[in-house]
């Protein structure tokens, strides 16, 4: 057990920080410090390409596909320095962290050649088409249909909560390819180009006034027959493989963004005097401790090489950070008081802390609600009996 980094890792840290800070002070100063995923989308796409051109887009990938074959420690370091430098979140995080690793694990050589270099170069932005109006927590009940017509798949149906679909180039879709099939059987995992007549994107305005999520309609949307990952009917396994990448190194970067939010609360508390309120002090201490434990939980999860047994730290990570951040949003508003309930923006745009308060209500819902997480922890982690399925 060792927490410290080696000298060469610290050198790597300095290299990352130098490069990132230079970009944020220079060519990309205009996007520094943005905390939403939607603001200045076109510039953010240019940033993706800039990262790719300089070999910083997906350092954990193998070198032959545009990565650096970076060690775990190096990936941790890069993620931390990325957020520390105030670089905004990756608009292609779905491509880099989910689609790419899934292709690496399950894609054919031809698919890897076709997609990975462009994802790494920031030229192909991916979004995720899993959830549907009738398939949220119960993901396996998707109804979007796919049928083979000649050498093309034809897709009909609707996806929802498609984050960043409006700026994406490709979408991966879990669709029902076997007529009359139910649950996880009969699903196929397809990759589809978004810019086509059969796909329509409609933004969903959220409680914070922003529109990161979309409804995506498929009306005779098409893709070539070989656009599937895995086999026909094997889509559930592919989707689950993909979701397993969600708990990767990127969580460390996410935590640095949380750090910025907590620091914002600490600064606000010092400025308005609530920092001397003993109850606020307790809550800030709890938030600080919770954030540290998130970091070390992630370190445990990433250090774990024994995949033969269930990793408790990995299984609990989602509910842990989501609940922590929702509490942080409430703390932010208690520190700000009524001043947090007004904005100078006539467009209903909010500063970091009020936005945190509003947005964090989604954290305990998307990617598996807290209730679903508890089921998973009890069923997969502790071996409790599964919830019975209804017949509907």
């Amino acid at each position, binding site marked *: 057990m060792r927490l410290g980094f080696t000298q060469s890792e610290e050198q790597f840290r300095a290299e990352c920080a130098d490069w990132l800070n230079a970009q944020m002070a220079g060519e990309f100063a205009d996007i520094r410090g943005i905390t939403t995923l939607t603001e200045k989308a076109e510039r953010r796409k240019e940033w993706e390409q800039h990262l790719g051109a300089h070999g910083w887009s997906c350092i954990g990938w193998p070198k032959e596909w545009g990565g650096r074959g970076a060690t775990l420690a190096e990936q941790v370091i890069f993620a931390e320095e990325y957020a520390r430098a105030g670089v905004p979140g990756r608009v292609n995080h779905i491509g880099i962290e989910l689609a790419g690793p899934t292709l690496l694990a399950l894609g054919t050589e031809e698919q890897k050649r076709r997609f990975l270099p462009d994802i790494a170069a920031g030229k192909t932005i991916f979004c995720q088409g899993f959830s549907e109006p009738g398939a949220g927590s119960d993901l396996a009940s998707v109804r979007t249909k796919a049928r083979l017509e000649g050498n093309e798949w034809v897709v009909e149906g609707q996806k929802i909560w498609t984050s960043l679909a409006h700026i994406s180039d490709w979408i991966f879709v879990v669709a029902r390819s076997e007529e009359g099939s139910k649950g996880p059987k009969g699903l196929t995992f397809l990759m589809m180009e978004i810019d086509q007549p059969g796909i329509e994107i409609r933004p969903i305005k959220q409680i914070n006034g922003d529109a990161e999520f979309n409804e995506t309609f498929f009306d005779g949307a098409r893709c070539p027959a070989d656009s599937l990952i895995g086999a026909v009917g094997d889509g559930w396994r592919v989707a689950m493989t993909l979701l397993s990448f969600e708990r990767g190194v990127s969580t460390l970067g996410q935590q640095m963004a949380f750090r910025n939010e907590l620091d914002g609360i600490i600064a606000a508390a010092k400025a308005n005097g609530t920092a001397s309120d003993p109850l606020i002090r307790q809550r800030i201490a709890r938030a600080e401790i919770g954030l540290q434990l998130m970091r070390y939980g992630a370190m445990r999860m990433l250090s774990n090489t024994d995949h033969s047994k269930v990793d408790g730290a990995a299984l609990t990570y989602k509910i842990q950070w989501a609940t922590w951040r929702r509490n942080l949003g409430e703390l932010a508003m208690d520190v700000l008081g009524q001043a947090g309930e007004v904005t100078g923006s006539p467009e209903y745009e909010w500063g970091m802390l009020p936005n945190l308060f509003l947005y964090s209500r989604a954290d305990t819902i998307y990617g598996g609600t807290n209730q679903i997480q508890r*089921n998973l922890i009890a069923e997969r982690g502790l071996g409790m009996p599964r919830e019975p399925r209804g017949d509907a």
Partner: protein
Amino acid sequence: MDFAFTDEQMMIAETAKAFFSENATSERTRAAMAGDGIDHALWQAFCTELGLSGIGIPESAGGAGLGLVELAIIAEAAGAQVAALPMLGSLALCAQAIVAGGSADQQASHLPALLSGETIAGYAHDAALKADGNALTGAAGFVAHGGAAGLFVVTSNTGAWLIAADAPGVTVTPLTTMDQTRPFARVTLNSAQGEPLANPAEAIAAAHRAGFVTVAAEGLGVAQAALDRTVAYARERVQFGRAIGSFQAYKHRLADMVVEIEQARSAVYWAACAVDEGSDEAALAVHAAKSFAADTAFKCAGDMIQLHGGIGFTWEHDAHLYFKRARSLQSMLGSGNWHREQVAAMILGEAA
């Protein structure tokens, strides 16, 4: 960075776990509870046969080397069985204080008897202690296993002394204590002659670091055991024609225990490792670990009772041993609120 046990640490964990689950049985613990709260045969075996008492004590001082990570591993295993042992007072607090703050002579004359188990030591803190030279007058109300101690490390906020339990002016009054596996004693000093530790500041700091981490690690063990035993019960107990573990209200409560326990595990080993590596984070980490893991222990032990229903409320069932130990972990060596205030002071500055 590699935040996982090494093979050696894994081996220590397995050894300690096997030792405590085989020997620190409910029956033996309950026998100890009827006496001075110590299973003396277990303590002898721990110190001499297994030689685990020297872990976290440098080899130069007669210990086995290694550090707080390994000490935490052992404390976690002991906590999981609510073992009736004077490990916290004798080893984590007193031996660490003597190693860090004692002269070579003091180490040589006191450590061997502590590590062999021949002498049990108690840590007696009195913020208002009066020291007239080395003549000490004051009282420490809640000295863990103080009734069985032959030696005390007595501290004020700035001073630290060694004093024998049978020295003139020392009165030890054992107290009936809620957690009978670690009963307190009141230690009263009336112009008792103490032997000053050479470096009291270091002694106190080391005792605090090791004490906080050990309490936290015990808490982790308590919490995990409370969960494990409740999970076993959830599988076997049937109501309304189904195992009670199949009810979502029950499952979610178990899941919440897991979420806290996983964080407590990170906290304990982060703090232990940060101290061992001399990291800047150590000061914050030990407060984080103590407050978080003790609270986790209490939550899980409380849930253990609730989720067992009526049987969990009985004297016969072991749930109350965990519950009472957890309560005592929360209050000893500073409450959770106090530890969190220390964290707050580090990041916000002192309270106005």
